[in-house]
């Protein structure tokens, strides 16, 4: 009896101590909601790298992975808001409505929704990255490196984000090589290594010698490696999966933004924002350029990267025509964010139709 009493007394002391220490150290707790597994080595993986940066900055974090974009998301969000989290990052487009709905119920909790546009309540911010800037660089490299003048592109779903990427890539490739053709294959998945590999193989068999992708797995770069053609990494640096094929990767770098926002909550300076950052703010990062690329191309890419960062060069600078020859962006003008956000037409030079 005595023993039990002493033991529970000691343990409650320890518990009390730990609680006090954490309370003193840092108050803010951040939560992350992921669409996929943290082990996807793509989209969710990169968000989790960002979460670890928040952790390294001294804050407590929680994450829930594999949350479907349904009523489940609401339940998870409500639970996280209820269990003392001060800021919650919802990292997939489909969480848009659940995020706004739950945000209304918890006005003291801050919500950050990735890739969405709805900010119905004062405690909801949105953020996204200008991945298309990275694709301008990939297009420049692809247009220079191709010998067959056929470039393959494995796309996921026909949404503005993907169409914008295809357009930005093609415009850049045409600029350095007017003879190129971009062949697009829609895999209708974000994530299915087998299917992605098959799509890449089909493009390679049809003569493509550079493959770009807007799906998330490493299967495509591995297929390119096997077939001896070039490819680009998506979301994370995929060089180690295909050292010969991967010329560079476009990485999603969420860490700085996440740390920034969590710190803002800690300092009481958090405010509603709509963030769309690109290469300039470091949200889009270009990995090391492969030494197979000629030196002049590498220096050209470096310069382009700097110009995109400073805003001297814009991925969508006129004149830009659509497939039918209608003017989309006039000479000397650049596409505004509204146009970019809703882009659902191919530019001239892209083959085929957008599937409906």
């Amino acid at each position: 009896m005595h023993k039990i009493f002493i033991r529970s007394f000691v343990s409650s002391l320890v518990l009390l101590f730990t609680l006090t220490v954490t309370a003193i150290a840092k108050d803010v707790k951040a939560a992350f909601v992921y669409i996929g597994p943290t082990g996807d080595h793509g989209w969710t993986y990169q968000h989790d790298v960002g979460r670890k940066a928040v952790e390294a900055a001294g804050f407590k974090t929680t994450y829930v992975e594999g949350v479907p974009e349904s009523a489940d998301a609401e339940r998870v969000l409500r639970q996280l808001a209820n269990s003392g989290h001060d800021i919650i990052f919802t990292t997939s487009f489909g969480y848009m409505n659940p995020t706004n709905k739950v945000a209304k119920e918890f006005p003291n909790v801050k919500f950050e929704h990735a890739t969405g546009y709805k900010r119905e309540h004062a405690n909801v911010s949105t953020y996204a990255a200008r991945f298309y800037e990275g694709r301008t660089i990939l297009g420049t490299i692809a247009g220079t490196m191709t010998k067959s003048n056929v470039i393959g592109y494995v796309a996921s779903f026909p949404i503005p984000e993907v169409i914008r990427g295809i357009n930005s890539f093609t415009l850049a490739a045409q600029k350095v090589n007017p003879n190129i053709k971009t062949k697009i294959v829609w895999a209708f998945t974000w994530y299915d290594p087998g299917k992605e590999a098959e799509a890449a193989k089909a493009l390679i068999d049809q003569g493509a010698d550079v493959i770009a992708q807007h799906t998330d797995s490493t299967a495509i770069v591995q297929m390119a490696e096997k077939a001896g053609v070039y490819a680009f990494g998506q979301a994370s640096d995929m060089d180690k999966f295909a050292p010969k094929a991967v010329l560079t990767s476009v990485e999603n770098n969420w860490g700085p933004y996440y740390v920034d926002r969590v710190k803002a909550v800690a300092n009481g300076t958090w405010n509603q924002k709509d963030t769309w950052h690109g290469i300039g703010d470091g949200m889009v990062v270009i990995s090391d350029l492969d030494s197979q690329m000629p030196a002049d191309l590498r220096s050209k890419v470096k310069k382009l990267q700097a110009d995109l960062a400073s805003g001297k060069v814009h991925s969508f600078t006129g004149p830009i025509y659509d497939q039918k020859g209608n003017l989309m962006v006039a000479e000397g003008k650049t596409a505004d964010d509204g146009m970019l956000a809703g882009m659902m037409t191919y530019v001239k030079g892209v083959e085929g139709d957008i599937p409906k």
Partner: protein
Amino acid sequence: MIIDINFIGLIIASIMASAVPLILASCGELITERSGVLNLGVEGMMIIGAISGFALMTVTGSLIIAIFGAMLAGVLISTIFAFLTQTLITNHVATGLALTIFGIGISAMIGKNFVGIPGKEFPVLFENLKDTIPLIGPILFGHSIVFYFAFTLPFITSYFLKKTKIGLIVRAVGDSPESASNQGINVRLVRYLCILYGGAMSGLAGAYLSMIYTPQWIENMTGGRGWIALALVVFSTWNPIKILIGAMIFGGLTIIQFHMQAIGVRIPVQFLTALPYIVTIIVLVVISRDSRKIRLSTPSSLGKSFHKDN
């Protein structure tokens, strides 16, 4: 448009490569079902094979250990199923579904440490002969040993079931376990072995995916191929040779769909994506018109538990 003959060879080779895991898992499941056991856990056994193969390859560095280890892992997980359904006489369907859920979960757990590690290159045979014969070259040469094994397996399976004594015993157990038992056959033992064999083949199918087809580990990477393998067994009316044809159709539709897109043929992608399932339904309708044939080829006691009183 000029179609290069080698190009057709390349397409056929891709289709065959995508059919390999389906053939392996289906041929294994076919033996299991022929003994009267319906194991819906193919997807789960396959993913266990995928992570085991990849993990062993990374840890030991030996491809041989990895391949056999993956088969062994398939055997081990199917032992759970065998114990539950044969010794504890649980329901086949429920147990099989549980096995799939279990397999997906545990593979994700083990796999946590193996994400983001590139796989090893798997050796291919007769690579230098690939360009010697047009059309046939790319189809026949330059594949892994598992590829060649998969394309001989249906014939071996067919011979085993039709011409060997053990094959006859398996069929007897599946068609009438009571009679087989009265003849002195240990029904439970036969079913145990058939389940374990099915597990080994599913494990090998999974290892093919994670070690040869797309050499990497990713959660849920089998992507429903286990379910397609199950459908294939029904599609084939329990005939191993028809599995070969079915697997080529199932694997081929995706690849041809991608090729048509790249050529610029304007068929709605959604329709092309749905095509494998539409074809399955059509084939099933055509096959099941002949009810006598269905009755002859379906193992009569499929999915029914056999309980011997003494």
